[in-house]
């Protein structure tokens, strides 16, 4: 008898209260055996969100800590790139299209939301391929897709590029801001003051890349990595797996999210990405700074699709830093906690963010503000 899989079957058991409680008690037992405190960085903003939304901090013993990492594609977007998007949206006959809450991220003076209020045609889509419909409906306009995200969303942009080329569509251009995960992890570890003992690796990124991209961290830096799913049972299970590695003197890459992640990842998607993209020499991460080879751009042969080339003359180049009082850089490096920031919750809120960690719901500060990290 055939059975239709219901969506809820994909998450119900991963939010089972009894399972969460059992893991919490196993973590307590394991933590007693630790020789010193362990600080675990969850690289991805999705995990930060899970940790705060499900109150997982409250389940950890005192000698196990979370450090909230830089893995939120919206948060790490420097203001000058947001300014690019705004400048493009103000061009005549341009429709600027982007994903989700990029729309509210402030640049040096305003956000795309403000630009839209002033008359710019700014739209958000759930899937980049929705740009095809917009372009078809507006043949006299240029649709610019402001592409953001880690390895997770890059293949969606590649799929759109592929269609634009195959269908010979003339009115879609790209502004590429795709970034990659391993490079910032390396930069954080190279900082002598870092406090990271282990990583929880991103879920969706790893579905595409495979867990192989983390092999260097146990090997070269002696830091364990456990690739975790996004549900509360996943995250709490991953913490247990990390503690066991310490107590059993192991240091390796393990995959908790084994229902979706393999060692090699989605090879088809990787090939498609390699066809269109190459590494930028360097990219400035908001709150962290310049990271060599940490972002992608269109290869020269596709520069005719590149809005950064076509509109080079009108795009501002000045580098713009965050507010002086903002300590997002230290938060992203695990040196400070959101509530240690002087402007947290007063001058800096989700509705008027000063720094990168407050701008997206997946940023550490926004998660603390929304769910109450003070409890």
């Amino acid at each position, binding site marked *: 008898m055939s059975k239709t899989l219901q969506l809820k079957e994909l998450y119900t058991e991963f939010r089972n209260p009894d399972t969460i409680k059992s893991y919490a008690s196993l973590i307590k037992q394991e933590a007693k055996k630790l020789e010193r405190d362990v600080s675990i960085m969850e690289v991805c903003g999705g995990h930060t969100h899970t940790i705060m939304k499900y*109150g997982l901090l409250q*389940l950890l013993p005192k000698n196990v800590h979370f450090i909230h990492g830089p893995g939120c594609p919206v948060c790490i977007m420097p203001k000058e790139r947001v300014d690019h998007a705004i400048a493009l949206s103000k061009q005549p006959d341009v429709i600027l299209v982007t994903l989700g*809450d990029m729309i*509210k991220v402030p640049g040096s003076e305003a956000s795309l939301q403000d630009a839209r209020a002033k008359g710019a045609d700014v739209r958000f889509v759930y899937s980049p391929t929705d740009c095809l419909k917009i372009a078809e409906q507006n043949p006299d306009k240029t649709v610019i897709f402001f592409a953001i995200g880690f390895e997770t969303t890059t293949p969606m942009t590649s799929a759109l590029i592929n269609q634009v080329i195959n269908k010979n569509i003339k009115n879609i251009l790209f502004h590429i801001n795709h970034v990659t995960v391993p490079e910032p992890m390396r930069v954080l570890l190279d900082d002598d003051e870092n406090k990271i003992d282990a990583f929880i690796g991103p879920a969706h990124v790893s579905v595409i890349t495979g867990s192989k991209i983390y092999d260097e961290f146990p090997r070269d830096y002696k830091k364990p990595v456990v690739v975790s799913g996004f549900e509360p049972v996943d995250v709490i299970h991953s913490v247990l797996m990390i503690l066991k590695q310490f107590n059993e003197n192991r240091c390796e890459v393990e995959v908790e999210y084994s229902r979706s992640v393999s060692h090699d990842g989605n090879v088809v998607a990787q090939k498609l990405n390699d066809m269109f993209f190459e590494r930028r020499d360097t990219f400035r991460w908001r709150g962290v700074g310049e990271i060599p080879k940490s972002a992608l751009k269109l290869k020269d042969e596709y520069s005719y699709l590149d809005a950064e080339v076509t509109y080079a003359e009108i795009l501002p180049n000045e580098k713009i830093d965050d507010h002086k009082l903002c300590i997002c850089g230290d938060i992203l490096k695990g040196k400070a906690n959101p509530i240690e920031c002087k402007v947290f919750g007063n001058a800096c809120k989700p509705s008027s963010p000063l720094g990168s960690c407050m701008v997206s719901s997946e940023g550490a500060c926004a998660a603390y503000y929304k769910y109450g990290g003070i409890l």
Partner: protein
Amino acid sequence: MKQIKLAHGNGGEENNELISKIFYKAFKNEILEKSEDAAIIEDGKLAFSTDSFTVTPLFFAGADIGKLAVCGTCNDLAMMGAQPKYLTCSVIVEEGFSIDELKKIVSSMQKELEINGAKVVSGDTKVVPRGSVDKIFINTTGIGKVLKSGISSNSITDEDAIIVSRDIGCHGATIFAAREGIELTSELKSDCTSLYPIVKKLLDEDIHVTAMRDATRGGLSAVLNEWAKQSNICIEVDEDKIPVCDEVMGLCELLGFDATSLANEGTFLLAVKTQDAKKALEILQKFNKNASIIGKLTDLHVKKVILNSAWGTQRFLDMPTGELLPRIC
């Protein structure tokens, strides 16, 4: 605030800022400042409320803009323990709008008026050039006769229990799915409905209702946060008691929404004296089996709403902010 943004209409934080800094400041008076669903006037005898309606698409699973326009205003009156009596109906319609569709909308309005036992007694029509409005905007204003006085969002205490009348988020999820062209294999439809018949039953049975509010824009979390502030109290809610149907939950999972901040158009929250909570629940469950006692009042974090998880952790359930936007990945 320099310019109006879409977020200013979200029923959450930005919306409240706009109302308090612009409208309350100019119109300042005691009745308005009570910030109830409907104003109570004429020595407590009458309830008075207004609402404007704009929705895309105009016709959606479970209702249309006409039904919405009558339910919206009548429900606001019912939430103050009033029986909806007389409504006005103002329509701003765009050049080129189909007469057949207009007839359909008006006929839905009439059907819903009959359910409430109310009449439209005055109206206005404006036709504007193409592009000046998005197809049709409807305003209704209503007067109701107060059946039970003293219902107020400002008087909730630790002697009350918090109840929700049914599963949440159906309207918001239906509209979002329709707008984004997300096709579902199940029959998700808007909860849009007239609440007066349910309220009447509760009052007829002498339930001690302290406050009621329909969870429209901003959803359940907006109402709870407004109540916590207005009544200067902490509301603690058990997450696993909040009813959410599989379809709404599924859509939230796909898009990264919280069901607690999705709009409803026929779902309300009640603060009821604890000793009456069980009886109230039984009555509500006759209308919808998913009605549920979801929370209690404490002094843990005054003016805040706290969500208790089934595994013993706590977090704030905050006022929704910003536009409703799907997450990135």
